[in-house]
């Protein structure tokens, strides 16, 4: 039972252990990019439609009629229009930080520092903030930033569907865009049909059983690693559900000490009840809610929380025994 929203979340023991064994996998959502000035999911969909308004292929009345639909449906419309008019939406332009605000320039620097507890980052974002494209860190700042600079430079970008499989789960300093990257328009999962295609279930029967390697990847991720969702607010829950629904094996766990996955989520003090409900909701998914207070800094508190995590968690090395256990998880269970 939550009694108050703390400034920093309490860190569960399993999260400490996962970090110390480099088993933690930061799972980055749009909330982080939004802090950096990127459009949110809704705005991203609207901007995609506006592209056709600007091109004169969609009038304002039409735009207004569909503006109330969900972002995913709007994106489906936009992609249909692309095909109909043979025009390509400039997603790179849409997906650029708001240069006027130039806010929270360092947010990804702090996020990337989480690599000390992890081998792999996963993101549902299309932007390239995690892809080693951060401006070089001035070497004179401190030694800590020097090491950060190295991490950024050696990041390996994975976004093609065929590359997203378990073999890359163990790749060092990999950033996996599970919904594609803006650097390759064809890799981006945008429409409902894209989602259905990516998340279809394995076909186990029939003459030729067909495996969805992407799902296997997710299943293995949640089975053998400890995932920390960062930047998934209420607006991104739909995307999160896709991931969690397919990835996490459902178990009836009521005691959150046994959870292996976590989500950072900010609340204002007056949202205590909401936080309690969200806690129950995530618990049903096998995820522990790590609530933190938005009272002082609003969503920018997330940056502070990430800094806090970087300070409190203890880095370590991958343990051979952990890797052996992971190997066991790769085999089908003994029947």
């Amino acid at each position, binding site marked *: 039972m939550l009694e108050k929203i703390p400034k920093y979340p309490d860190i569960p023991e399993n999260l400490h252990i996962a970090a110390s064994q480099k088993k933690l996998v930061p799972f980055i959502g749009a909330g982080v990019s939004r802090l950096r000035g990127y459009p949110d999911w809704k705005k991203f969909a609207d901007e995609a439609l506006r592209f056709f308004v600007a091109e004169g292929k969609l009038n304002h009345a039409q735009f207004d009629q569909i503006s109330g639909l969900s972002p995913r449906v709007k994106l489906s419309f936009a992609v249909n229009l692309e095909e109909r008019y043979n025009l390509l939406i400039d997603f790179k332009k849409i997906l650029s930080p708001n240069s006027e605000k130039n806010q929270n320039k360092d947010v990804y620097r702090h996020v990337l520092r989480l690599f000390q507890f992890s081998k792999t980052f996963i993101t549902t974002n299309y932007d390239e903030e995690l892809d080693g494209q951060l401006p070089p860190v001035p070497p004179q700042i401190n030694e800590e930033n020097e090491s950060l600079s190295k991490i950024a430079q050696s990041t390996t970008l994975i976004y093609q569907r065929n590359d997203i499989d*378990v073999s890359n789960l163990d790749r060092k300093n990999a950033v996996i865009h599970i919904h594609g990257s803006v650097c390759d328009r064809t890799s981006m999962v945008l429409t409902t049909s894209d989602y259905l295609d990516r998340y279809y279930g394995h076909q186990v029967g029939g003459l030729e059983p067909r495996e969805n390697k992407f799902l*296997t990847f997710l299943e293995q991720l949640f089975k053998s690693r*400890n995932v920390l969702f960062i930047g998934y607010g209420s607006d991104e829950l739909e995307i999160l559900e896709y991931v969690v629904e397919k990835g996490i094996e459902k178990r009836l766990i009521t005691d959150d000490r046994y959870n292996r996955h976590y989500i950072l989520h900010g609340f204002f003090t007056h949202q205590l009840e909401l936080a309690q409900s969200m806690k129950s909701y995530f618990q049903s998914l096998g995820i522990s809610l790590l609530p933190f207070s938005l009272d002082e800094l609003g969503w920018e508190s997330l940056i502070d929380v990430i800094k806090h995590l970087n300070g409190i968690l203890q880095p370590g*090395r991958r343990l051979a025994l952990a890797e052996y256990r992971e190997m066991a998880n*790769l085999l*089908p269970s003994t029947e």
Partner: protein
Amino acid sequence: MTTALTSNEREFVDRMTKGSEYATTGFQLLSERRSDILDKYFDLLQEKGLFATNNNQEPILSWHALEYLAAVAKIADKRNDECLAGKIMDIVRTRSDEGNYIIRSSDNHHACLLFARIIGLVPLSTVNMDDIELIPSWLNNEFDRGHTAKEISEGILSRTLNENEDRPIKMACRILYHCTAIKSDGEAGPGYGRFKPVTVVDNFWLEQLLNKHIPTFVEKTAEEAAEIFIKRLKQIFPPERNWSGVMRPAIEGHSQNHPWENPVNRFVEGLRDVLSRWVVHDAQAARTYINKLKDDKTGIIQRIVIHTLNYHWADLKDFYISMVSSELFQDENLHELYELLSTRFTEMTQQQRNATLDAIRNLPEPDYYEVHYRELFLKRKQRNWLSAIAGKGNDSADEWYAELNADENIGALSPHPSFSSYTASWWVPDPAPYTVQELLIWAKNDTLVEMLNNFEETDSRRGPTIHALVGTLVEAIKEDPQLFISIIAKFVRARRPYQYGIVNGFNQLWEVEKDSRTKIIDWLDAWEKLFDFFDQLLSNEDFWRETVTPGPDLAPDRDRVVAAIARFLHAGTHEDSHSYPSALLPRAWKLITLLLEKIEPEAGAGGNAMYQAINPTRAKVIEALFSHTLRACRVSDKVSGEHSAVWTAARPTFEKELGKCKGANFEFSTLAGACLTNLAYIDHEWLRENIQRIFPEEYRDNCICALEGMVHATASRLVYTMMIETGILDRALQMDIKNQHAKDILLQRVALAYLWGDEAIENPRFKRLFELRCCDDLQVVSDYLGSIGGQDFKPEHIERIVEFWSHAVDWCQSSDESPTKLLSSLSELACYLEAIDEDALRRLLIVARHLGGDGYEFIKELERLFKNHPEEVLRIVDVLSETYYPGYDYQDRLQSLIEKIAKHSPQGKIKAIQYVDKLASKSLPGMRELYDELSSN
């Protein structure tokens, strides 16, 4: 049918390529899976090189990989999947070709065993004759010469023999050939010259293999099997070595055969059994073969043929006539031919009988004897042969035998005429000539001593012996001690062994009564009579004039009588609650002084002074002297409250003995050292004045004996102080004492004195140990202080131990080279720490870095201290996790500590898991399970 692998499974195989540990773990995990689907991984595993050796850097193909291959081989056989089996066999072939390594490797026997298993599991159609030629490289392994053969026997050999076609049967023969291969172990053995054969397969397993398969070989391919055994026998018995009886006295199972002659036994029995079974199975074919074989000139083979002829006379008797000749009667064939004649002569035809007699008659004179003996020995030989057929219905033979028997020059017939030499052994029960009952009857009718004295020992090996009769006498004394005490005086006339017997018998009774606390006889009366007997015996000058020469028999001599008396006198004073009447003390004193006067000290000081001091006769007397004096003092103390008069009377004897301790009388030196505390009780002033004489500087051997004796003395502050004051201890510590135990005891006394407060770190003893870097000696002190832990010490004692610990650890730390063993020993003193302050933590961290195999005591203390000092212990465990990886976790102490740490805090759990991971990598058992328990996420 194989199924496609999922991406998870492909990744699993990929992970196996990360290193040998990963590969091993992978194969282990696979072995836990359903065995009937294991083959689906095969192609990818092979593609990833997981059945290859690691560029010869890591040449041992993982056993787990081979276990996997064996499991897949089973699947291939079940499905008759020749393609899969072929791939497996290709691996076996390639790896065995690289097998030069395997042959050399002593620890790769398991790989050989698995190769052998696999070849027995795959469908037989995928195994070819070349594969069978791999077997020698698998068998030629020094480390295990048995289990691979067992696999072959139960696998490929059984399978090939189950078939009826030509090809598998040929394979079976070739396997038998390889399994019976012999090599030389490089040692010369009797009968072998330079070549001592050893089978490549361990004898036990070879015997199992042969016993199991010979019947089938006979059924399917008897001739080839026989040829293999013949070939092996000829390897051992080449033509120039024709005296096979040395290695195999009898072809049949016989007690004369030598169980240690393994290769010979296996091959003789192999050929014997093949021929024998063959005759039963297919007499006609066997006859044809044996008919040819009987002309073989190899002695051992001819013997086996004769044996077969004898055992299957009905089927083979017609061969006899073509075999019988003087040549057949050569010495080598003695046993088998003798047995044949003994058994079958009565069944022989007249022609066969006549031919037999002719052959004996025509025996050549043995040319290995000198000329004038040749005729005699020929007759002897002929008589020997005739003994086999005499009385079996042939008059000529009987007459000739009688004639030769009548010739006294020939000598008696051997009791074992079918053997040229016969080995017999028997346990020597050392039988006594008379029973206890007989001795009791003679004791009653007063003839016992006479009967005993009249017994003469004629055969000391087989008995009856005097030694055994003495034992019977002791038993008789125990049966009726009262009877024997009444006639003890008569034993003055008895021979020494029986005098020894009666003294020893009563001494044993005395000890029995002490232990059982039940009255056996009236000892008041008995001691009087015993003293009378001792007086009478020892006062006789003839007794002392007797020359004692140590003989080969075990019969007690005069010195053992004296030793028995001294031991008995000692036993009579050792315990106040079980001692002879004090009124007899003066009589005993006279006896003891007499014995001291009569018996000369031993010549030199040897290796172990105490061992020497308690064994010679004089040492027994000196023991009795000390025991007697102490008893007399105690009696006097009880009566008058002091014992000066007793000591005044005894002192001259002690001083006289001490006076002899100048390069001699080492028994006294040793026992004086052992009784230092007792001497302090008797007269500490005297001891103070004479202690230098007990540990004389100028007589090093006497001093060493006394020091070694001191090992057995009770520790005493008074004595220790005397030794310090007189400088004896400092001198002793610098002496080169060979007896390490004695040296250790001296150091332990120093440690004890330190505990008492009589020593300090600044005192010369400790100063010297540190200054001269006597790490071994310091370790003795540390070990001692560690070993007495758990006692109810006063705070000042604990304070002193901790002070020593602190000083020693700091000293070690300041040394250029850390004395690891000493630091490991010092870790045990952690048991005296009640808390961990800053200094203690610093020192604990130092000793933790040098923890040795006995670190489990330290771990136990860390667990104790963890309750109040968790953070400090966590820091120490940090150090341990870098250096301490025991091979065995005594009483699960380390596991228990790790569990405690893990429960303490997330940081504790992280450290615990990291340590467990390292321990698992160093193969400490139980760590994988502990990891699973701790790391449930």
